[in-house]
């Protein structure tokens, strides 16, 4: 993928650039809002990583101008502030996701992967199917290889998040947000506990583990 990073802090920019390059992406890094706006309008990118605080034109304004100009490149906003209102503001102004500094590279990578493949229009789906697992979105019922699996509503929600993002890693914080609407990280292992329950229910009677644990990153549904 071609990714544009706008970040004035050289160390953070380098950290992100190196990580993304290692993942096989082509990365362009700029230091100011004006440069970001210019590059993003001139060249097609697959994703933007914008720091909220940039010298001159800040990240939010860059994003607003891009969106006003009809450029819909998926954008991930970075910020040093954990202000509750900032998050809402960023999402309302066209950011596809939002990440608070400092962050782990795996978190950034996972979130970028999710926003890049996010369908541009809401798909009208009635069911999700990944390998032998099927989720009926209206009845909220799950089958694996035709066998009905009894799940709690919250477990269905978690499975749905994993299935919608098949091939992509869902981090703990992403799951906390999607499933419980928690924007904080509890000290207890609630994600791990719920995943292990879901896993036990999905796997009971089957050979293959339906959920893959990606060490140090998060979880994925087995899709091949």
């Amino acid at each position, binding site marked *: 993928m071609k990714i544009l990073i706008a970040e004035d802090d050289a160390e953070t920019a380098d950290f992100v650039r190196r990580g993304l390059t290692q993942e096989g992406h082509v990365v362009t890094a700029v230091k100011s809002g004006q440069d970001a706006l210019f590059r993003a309008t001139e060249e097609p990118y697959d994703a933007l990583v914008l720091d909220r605080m940039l010298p001159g034109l800040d990240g939010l304004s860059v994003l607003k101008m891009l969106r006003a100009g009809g450029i819909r490149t998926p954008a991930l906003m970075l910020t040093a502030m*954990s*202000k*509750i*209102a900032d998050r809402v503001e960023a999402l309302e102004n066209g950011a596809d996701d939002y990440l608070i500094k400092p962050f782990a590279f795996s978190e950034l990578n996972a979130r970028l992967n999710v926003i890049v493949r996010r369908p541009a229009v809401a798909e009208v789906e009635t069911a999700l199917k990944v390998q032998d697992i099927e989720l009926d979105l209206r009845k909220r019922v799950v089958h694996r290889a035709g066998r009905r699996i009894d799940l709690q509503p919250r477990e269905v929600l978690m499975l749905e998040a994993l299935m919608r993002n098949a091939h992509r890693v869902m981090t703990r914080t992403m799951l906390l947000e999607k499933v419980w*609407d*928690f924007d904080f990280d509890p*000290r*207890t292992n*609630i994600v791990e506990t*719920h995943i292990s329950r879901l896993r036990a229910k999905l796997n009971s009677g089957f050979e293959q583990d339906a959920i893959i644990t990606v060490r140090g990153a998060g979880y994925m549904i087995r899709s091949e």
Partner: protein
Amino acid sequence: MNRLAPRSTFGLVILVSLLLSCAALLLGVALFAASHEALEEQLNRRIEAETASFLRHFTRGGAAELAEAVTQREEGGRVSGAGYLLVDAAGRKVAGGLNAPVPEPGWREFLYVTRPDGKQDVSQALTTRLPDGATLVVAADRGPVDASDRAFLTLSGATLATMLLIGVGSAWALGAVVRRRLGHINQTAQAIIDGDLSRRVPEDGSLSEFDQLSRTLNRMLDRNASLMETLQQVSSDIAHDLRTPLTRLQQALNGALSEDLDAQGYRRALERAADRSQEMLDIFAALLRISEIETLRIRESFQPVDLSEAVGQVADAFGPDLEASGHQLGIGEAAGAVVEGDRRLLLQLLANLVENALRHTPPGSKISLSLQTSADDVILEVADNGPGIAPEHRDKVLRRFTRLEQSRSTPGQGLGLSLVAAIAKAHFAELMLADNEPGLIVRLTFKAHPPSGG
């Protein structure tokens, strides 16, 4: 600002009393003029009446009867202070004892009359020329008018003087009182500026404006003092609490440097170091969040939040963990408990309380979440039957970084309950820690109708 306007109490009161004196003076002048005129008018009417009666005598009996009447009237002495003079056309005196030069016909306001004892009186006179060329002068003594005028002026002067005296006196007294009371406040402020932060404005227990001001100022000073104390405590606690993970980080790094490790060993050492720095970042994140909430700006985006639903969500999230650690979770829900607030913060508050209970109670303990609603408030309770918190420590645990001796061995930063306290305050909720006999009960009372606005 008008530079001429007086700024001191003294000046103000002087100004007011001067204005009042001026008003009194104006009123006096008006009254004086009116009464003076009335008295003169009265004299005039008397003179006119007498002149008319003399003229009737003249019409009836000519100059002779008129002279007779004048003489009679004078001798009769019926009217005090009156004087008459009748001279013929040649200017010779015919009758009357008025000892004054004959004025021109018409009214004369001030006619100087020489009394038998040689002194001069002032009279008001009407001079009438008769058809035969004679002249009749009827005069009335102005004494009463002058006496009344004098009395009036004396009285007015005395009143004005008294008013000015009272004005200046009260200005001085009021100024002194205000100066004294403000002086106390001033001294206190100066003492605080000089570093004596415990100084307070003296209160006299009365309900005067000054006392109310003193009380309000003292309350403000108390609040500032407690904020400063918190700030000092927090700064030293931050320094102290960050030293622990920093020391551990350094130990991990130094240990790895001094030992001859293989790649696996170095990796483990790096992982330990990363964990330690994550710990510090977590502390900062929690602190920043608390300070953000304490600015109360989040109130601007408050919306109705279904607490019943939030309780369900948190119970659902922590259910498996609680079960895994052998705790029992009880939920006493009231449906439709709605409060104004920030959904995510309320979720965090609930999560913190549940985690707290989970962390500080032994396996097998019972943790319960309950909601009660009434017309005025929504009460949220998180209770456990664990060891509880001694009454003397209950206030302390709400402060940042407080970790009781008994929980030193359990993980945590001592920020969970301060975050709960900050969120509760932002939501106008009253937070109370009580004894669950045994165990701890955390009670949050949300107002069903919180004060509107930020």
